[in-house]
């Protein structure tokens, strides 16, 4: 179950990071960065 959770969060984090680098608008990049914080903290099971 933990592996499934990790894979889901990893996929979402990777997708958000990909979006951050592909997006041209700075404010949209910043929005993606904020979302990425939550995914990364989840990925390492801190929060």
């Amino acid at each position, binding site marked *: 179950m*933990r592996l499934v*959770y990790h894979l889901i969060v990893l996929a979402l984090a990777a997708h958000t*990071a990909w979006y951050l680098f592909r997006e041209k608008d*700075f404010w949209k*990049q910043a929005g993606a*960065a904020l979302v*990425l914080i939550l995914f*990364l903290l989840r990925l390492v099971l*801190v*929060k």
Partner: protein
Amino acid sequence: MSIRRTSPFILSALTLVVCFFSGREFLAMRAADEIRPGPGLTAARRLSDYFPPLKGTPGDTPVYVFQGPAAGGSVLVVGGTHPNEPAGTIAAVVLAENIRTAKGKVLIIPWANASGFTHSDPQEASPQRYEISTPGGRRSFRLGARVTNPVHQWPDPTIYVNPGGQKLAGIESRNLNRAYPGKPDGSLTERVAFAIMALIKAEGVVLGIDLHESAPEYPVINAIVFHENGADLAATAQMSLQAEGYDFRLEASPPNLRGLSHREWGDAAGIMAVLLETANASHGRLKGRPSAALVVDGQDKFYEKAAKLGRLFVPFGPAGIPLDERVARHLAGVSALLEALAEIAPAKAVSVENIPAAPAVLTQGLGAFLRPPD
């Protein structure tokens, strides 16, 4: 290179910096709070000593044993069933740092749901910690969440069917006070509940006291909730508390409300089980901005207004209901229950010295009864 090309790198670096500092703060909540049991301590154990599979899990927690020289009964005092109800934990810590047992045995669990202390309730803007001044400096304590950390127990079912067969909302699967009598192969929360039941049976506990707090607008407040096994005991304690000026309501534990300490400790182990509630403004829905000061000082203008409108079940003035007062109330409750036990079952009496007297806690402050930090 244009700003557009470099900004993702800068933002990624900032993301990692924020992750580092916030992650460090979250992880700090996993370190146990300090406690300095007094000279009356006879053994420092862990809950896993009573249920070894709990060892090494986030559910394991300290158990402090105060065994007196004379034979008597055993009493269990539990704080931190709900980690966002600090008066329960602090009353348990104050007992552990002060008492000596002359007769019988007292067992104290200050952080019953240890996992719940490692995080905060989401979207509540709760402070992670609060501080209490002692003559030798300030002591810091964690304010946790009502339920087990989802990092330790995931996912929640849509409907939680607890060990007693009651159907509850999914989040209640992480509520220790819905998980009794627990399951040896259940979720972390159910295993913690099972371990507490194992302790009750192994130690021959005759009276279990579960210390809680609830919102001032909640009807079961300033109350002794009792299992029918402890009806005489609760009534006797209530009379002496009233005489001391402490208004306590008596509430019978409903037989069809499964999974709660005051129900299952009594049903499954046959002990006298009681739960004490005090009124905590930081707990309720009507409060203003949450803060560590609200937890400790208990002052809130919205609760004052609610009291004037007759919406609360306790008086609430400008002085609020500070932690000192809530802990004093719990200590008065524990003392009265111990005296009632000696009266009702003299062979099982537990005689405890040095429980800080409630009026002394009110006049000198809680800090006078906590050991100073290093």
